């Protein structure tokens, strides 16, 4: 049995918890619990979507749902996680803004968890910090660590933004998509990666920043 994915998930939870400690302003109660619940719900929906798209019927093969290494659909996971979080926060969008930096930290933790999984490496590179797989002469970009650093920087950036409905959440979504988009060319892939969904995240995130305050009339939670 392989537990490295669990270690990566625990790293994500640890980073998210750290995020809620660093940027605790206006957070809902039990913010880390809510984030973990939302992430679990997102992964479930993402796994089901991936199975259906691969032609596997989840009802005929329910045990396959647990084998997340078989694939998780990025966009379905993101939508379901955000919807679950909003539902848990009683549809108060301001809580999305408050949680955005910690959520980016959680994502950064997931990517940094590649260190437990020995899955940090991407395309071949001769840069001084590139390293090789065990027994291989080919050194490679530690692309997942680049992603983690990019997301931590995005979390800091988002935390500096003014409080306005969907301002922080929108920029967080856009920056998460952008960081993945920028690192994708360094990531070996069979399917080409969900580039369309990363571009969609950037566009939707920026649209939320622009349109959010006009269509959502909501009082920001007090500090």
């Amino acid at each position: 049995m392989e537990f490295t994915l669990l270690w990566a998930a625990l790293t994500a939870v640890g980073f998210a918890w750290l995020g809620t400690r660093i940027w605790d302003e206006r957070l809902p109660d039990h913010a880390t619990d809510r984030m973990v619940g939302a992430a679990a719900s997102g992964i479930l929906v993402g796994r089901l979507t991936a199975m259906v798209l691969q032609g596997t019927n989840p009802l005929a093969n329910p045990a396959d749902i647990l084998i997340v290494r078989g694939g998780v659909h990025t966009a379905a996971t993101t939508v379901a996680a955000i919807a679950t979080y909003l539902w848990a926060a009683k549809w108060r969008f301001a809580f999305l803004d408050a949680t955005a930096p910690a959520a980016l930290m959680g994502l950064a933790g997931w990517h940094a968890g590649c260190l437990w999984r020995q899955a940090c490496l991407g395309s071949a590179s001769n840069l001084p910090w590139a390293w090789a797989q065990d027994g291989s002469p080919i050194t490679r970009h530690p692309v997942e660590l680049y992603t983690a650093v990019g997301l931590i920087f995005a979390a800091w950036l988002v935390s500096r933004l003014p409080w306005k409905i969907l301002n922080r959440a929108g920029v967080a979504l856009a920056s998460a998509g952008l960081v993945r988009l920028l690192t994708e060319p360094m990531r070996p892939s069979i399917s080409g990666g969900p580039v369309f969904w990363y571009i969609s995240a950037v566009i939707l995130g920026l649209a939320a920043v622009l349109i959010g305050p006009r269509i959502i009339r909501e009082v920001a939670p007090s500090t």
Partner: protein
Amino acid sequence: MSKPLFLLTRSLVLALIVVACGTAVGETTGPPVDDLPVTTADEFEAHLTALDRPAVVNIWASWCLPCRAEAPLLDQAFEKYGSEIEFIGVDVQDNQTDAKAFLAEFGLDFDHFFDKTREIPNHYAGIGTPITFFFGPGGELITTHNGVVDERTLALNIDELLNLP
């Protein structure tokens, strides 16, 4: 504001369930499959040695749930890299009927061998099922991945094979 969004979410979840039910049980994607050739470890090694290009060897079985989960990915990898890399499946501890049903369901359109006694994975010190072995040209074992292979691991190791000095 909250009620329409709640309805939207419920509709999305419902749509996912409906889509999930959409695939018929036991639906097959490929043509009927012949019996898989029975092969010993020595014959298999000789087969790999004769190859002049790298090979990805996947150990699977029809009763193995994780094998089902990784089968679509292997099919996708074969579609993309089949012209540069030899893909080979080895069905272990199985029977021909179930093996053929598995292949018909997933349409894994590369060569497969039948190894009732797990001689081949044991020969290469693989553990459990599934296993994915990555061989250089001439049958040199480069990497072994025990367990379900995810897209990143498969893509990275294929890239290693394609960039072998």
